[in-house]
């Protein structure tokens, strides 16, 4: 493990080292032929000029791009916090004016942002400026309805809303797999249409925003031969650089995505430089480390310097609600001060700390909303993450901080999420799962948080135990293991298929199972019987069959699970699992044991147990 970290840090430094030199060069030449935009501001700001990068067509693009997903509302909050309120057009105008005045020229929006009000608000603000002063970027956000008609209507409407006759950067919004690409853009002919629009000059640059895994990314990159992507929008920041996949096995590290794009000379737009603001609000330890190094620099500025470091990065999009954020970000990139090797090492260290926290990787983008059952999904995750960050998720009841943290967590929970919208109302309808660009298994996380809240409220449940069980299951998923067992803090992992690991442990005397905490993928009658016989204390599993659940509960084993099924299917999904069917009418674990012994003996003797 320690070795892994060193290697990744070395790569981290190596890859970035070269990049920074190039970036500095680009920024130097960029500021040479600057328009007077930045120098115009004689308002006494102590900053220099905005750093610019160049796209495939020679257009100068400000390194800071204005993301319009979090425009302010009249309530003075962002659309995220106050979803009732109207957008505050006056304030938006002020923000856009300030941005343009200080050299920002890229504005990125989508028909989906701010409940569909973002494009219009941006259009109004920009219409007060000369078309040559800004570049506008929007997307084909045909998530809900991807027919040709409605996609076409969405495309046309963007022009009206933005009050422009050409769009500088147009994106296929949020794709990560061949299947998504096909169903939303290829089958309906929209991609061919958009390529035609690019030829006609109504789209200056065509690209897509990416959320997905390696397979999907490679497929989409291969399409470059056909479609010639002018740019690609990826999620990139100092945590995702090396830790995106570790935090969620369904995501891809930006080190990989960026490097692949650089190889192909495709300009890169960056989203989530702050991970939905989470990297601007690090825990005390990390904040102290950064402030120690540069007392006057904001925490966010470090993340921006990192995100902008690489030479092929065209612009870093940041959703800015408040003037202070805009001013701070403008300052960070006017001009970009490259990170030293020491700085990079520090950020790598902070990324390690960050990734070790059990946060939910939610960036509050709202795509999962509205939840049909009324939950405030991003609100719940934000609260949970905030509490983890502030050290308010104290899982040991004996911890002196427990009482205080418990109150803060519960009071804060009711404050940030109305009771009827809290995690205990999630019924796992799974409506949200395909919507999440971060590919979070939302219902699973909801149940985890619900169990945590419930334990806090009841006050006598072993939270430490629950935390261990949650981390064991995470370990199981990440390592594609068959079983993970923790006994008195000693964790063992297993990879054999089926029930064989449990069988071996139990035949050896079952010492490892006595009082153990177990994470398993699927639990049927066989596994349940052996866990009861071995004296397992608690188990956390993805899938469990109803009879197994009953057997475990009757055996006094605490069970946490995601899905309950009637019985366990066999590997070919043609019927019931052979062991499960052999144990069909048995409810007493003791009676099951000889049957299991016979089954494993058959299996190991090469008998086709499926017969």
């Amino acid at each position, binding site marked *: 493990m320690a070795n892994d970290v060193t290697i990744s840090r070395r790569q981290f430094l190596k890859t970035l080292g070269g990049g920074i030199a190039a970036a500095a060069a680009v920024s130097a030449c960029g500021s040479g032929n600057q328009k007077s935009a930045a120098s115009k501001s004689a308002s006494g700001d102590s900053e220099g000029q905005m750093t610019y990068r160049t796209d495939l067509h020679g257009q100068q693009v400000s390194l800071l791009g204005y993301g319009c997903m979090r425009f302010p509302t009249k309530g003075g909050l962002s659309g995220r916090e106050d*979803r009732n309120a109207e957008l505050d057009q006056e304030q938006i105008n002020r923000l856009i004016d300030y941005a343009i005045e200080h050299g920002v020229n890229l504005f990125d929006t989508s028909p989906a942002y701010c409940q569909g009000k973002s494009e219009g608000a941006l259009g109004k603000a920009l219409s007060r400026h000369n078309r040559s002063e800004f570049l506008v970027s929007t997307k084909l956000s045909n998530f809900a309805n991807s027919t040709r008609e409605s996609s076409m209507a969405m495309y046309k409407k963007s022009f009206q809303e933005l009050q422009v006759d050409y769009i500088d950067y147009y994106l296929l919004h949020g794709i990560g797999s061949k299947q998504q690409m096909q169903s939303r853009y290829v089958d309906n002919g929209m991609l061919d249409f958009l390529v035609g629009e690019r030829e006609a000059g109504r789209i200056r640059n065509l690209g897509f925003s990416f959320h997905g895994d390696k397979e999907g990314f490679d497929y989409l990159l291969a399409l470059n031969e056909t479609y010639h992507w002018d740019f690609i929008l990826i999620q990139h920041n100092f945590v995702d650089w090396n830790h995106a996949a570790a935090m969620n096995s369904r995501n891809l590290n930006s080190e990989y995505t960026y490097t692949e794009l650089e190889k192909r000379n495709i300009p890169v737009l960056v989203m989530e430089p702050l991970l939905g603001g989470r990297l601007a609000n690090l825990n005390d330890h990390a904040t102290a480390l950064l402030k120690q190094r540069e007392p006057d620099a904001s925490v966010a500025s470090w993340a921006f310097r990192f995100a902008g470091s690489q030479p092929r990065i065209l612009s870093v999009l940041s959703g800015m609600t408040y003037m202070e954020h805009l001013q701070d970000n403008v300052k960070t990139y006017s001009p970009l001060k490259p990170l030293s090797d020491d700085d990079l090492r520090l950020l790598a260290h902070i990324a390690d700390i960050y990734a070790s926290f059990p946060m939910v990787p939610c960036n509050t983008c709202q795509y999962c909303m509205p939840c049909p*059952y*009324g939950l405030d999904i991003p609100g719940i995750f934000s609260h949970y993450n905030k509490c983890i960050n502030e050290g308010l998720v104290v899982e040991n009841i004996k911890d002196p901080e427990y009482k205080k943290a418990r109150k803060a967590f519960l009071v804060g929970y009711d404050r940030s999420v109305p009771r009827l919208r809290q995690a*205990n109302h999630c019924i*796992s309808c799974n409506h949200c799962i395909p919507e999440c660009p971060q590919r979070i298994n939302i219902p699973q996380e909801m149940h985890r948080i619900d169990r945590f809240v419930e334990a806090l409220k009841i006050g006598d449940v072993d939270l430490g135990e629950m935390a261990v069980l949650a981390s064991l299951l995470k370990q199981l998923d990440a390592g594609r293991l068959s079983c993970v067992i923790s006994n008195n803090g000693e964790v063992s992992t297993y990879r054999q298929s089926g029930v064989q690991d449990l069988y071996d442990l139990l035949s050896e005397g079952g010492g490892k199972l006595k009082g153990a905490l177990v994470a398993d993928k699927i639990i049927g009658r066989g596994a349940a019987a052996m866990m009861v016989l071995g004296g397992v204390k608690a188990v956390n599993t993805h899938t469990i069959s*109803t009879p197994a659940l009953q057997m475990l509960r009757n055996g006094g084993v605490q069970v946490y699970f995601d899905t*309950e099924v009637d019985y366990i299917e066999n590997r070919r999904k043609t019927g019931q699992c052979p062991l499960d069917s052999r144990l069909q009418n048995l409810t007493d674990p003791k009676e099951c044991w000889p049957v299991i012994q016979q089954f494993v003996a058959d299996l190991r003797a090469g008998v086709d147990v499926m017969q």
Partner: protein
Amino acid sequence: MLRKIRISLAVVFYTLITLLFLDFTGTIHTYFGWMADIQFVPALLALNVGVVVALLVLTFLFGRVYCSVICPLGVMQDVVAFFGKKSKKNRYSFSPERKWLRYSVLVVFLATILAPGVGFIAHLVAPYSAYGRIANNLFAPVYQFGNNVLAYFAERAGSYAFYTVDVWIKSLTTFVVAAVTFVLIAVLAWRGGRTWCNTVCPVGTILGFFAKYSLYKPVIDTTKCNSCGLCGRNCKASCINSKEHTIDYSRCVACFDCIDKCNKGAISYKLRSVAQPAEDKGVDKSKRAFLTTSALIVAGATVKAQEKKVDGGLAAIIDRQAPNRKTALKPAGSLSIKHFTDHCTACQLCVSACPNQVLVPSSDIEHLMQPEMSFERGYCRPECVKCSTVCPADAIKPIDTAEKSSISVGYAVWLRENCVVVTDGVSCGNCATHCPVGAIQMMSENPDQYGSRKIPVINPERCIGCGACEHLCPARPLGAIYVEGREVHKEV
């Protein structure tokens, strides 16, 4: 001096008892819960012989100090009267006792207090529960609003010292009753001091018997008295006939105002010369006397507090409609509906104390204003037994969480036609997931077919009726699972 002692004690009692109803955190109750227990009617209903005897002995010794110090409704009248006296000095005058009214109210009170269906008439005039309703319905919202203001600032200051609570009308009927009682008593107190206590209050009448013969009482020394009449015009009980130099001790609430007022020092509080024990009026025995009374129908539609917050980002949550329970749900510890109805004085202390907003006053005429359980805003959480610890009338007997987990106050019933598994075709199981006793299992609708949708199956023998399933059921406005009450609670 005596008056100052009386006022200080009264302030202490009044403040703390009021706080019992206002403090939703339960802290005050830990230390001062006994102040509710020593109230007369709750003690009577709890068959708390010790307290009843002690109060009677107290009255027999010192007169109606209960009325001037312990009874919150009495002290509240003094507070109102204090301002009344400010606006007009020497405003009271002697009036003869309205015996007819006093005794008929007492008879009605005793006749109805345990009679089925009309108990609410007794509760209407019982002083402590009348005050409880006023505090719970009128004062608590103000207190909570103040708390919410503090919580607002605490939230902005990043402090968790205060948290926001919902301010809502739990039952319109009870709210109206409380408001009418308050206005009526306040007007009477403003104009005539303790008119209510001496013409209506049944506890005042009962204690009056004993006060008549109390050992210590204020006595007018006719040798010093110059018949100025100042005492009579300042007697809030209107019981001093200064012309005749007599005091009606059955109405005197031992406030000692007259002693302070008399500038000749003619009135003193002293041991009376001839001590004759009061004869037993046998009030307790007459409790079950019958009286046919046509029930006063308190009209008032129950309006559900609307709390809709609709916007684009969040799906609208339709308000949950309360199910139509055949048998009302009473909290664990109340043994049975009968036990609860017989003992509860409808003081709303448990309603104030319930942190999960489960207890609400009933609008049903038979149990009017007495609390019942309802799960629209929360459910009866396993770690909480607050209502059982606060009840002064023993209507809810004290239980611990372990006992609570084995008392079944009701059982869940599944309504197939509302279940989202059936109506929306989604998988659910929220009821089973949150059942604290494992009384609900998700079973295949069709056992022969793998992966057929799972519907909840309830084991009513295991169900304790906590309402977790009902509250957390996603079906709205009518839930797909609800708890039906049990007449007699049972062990599981």
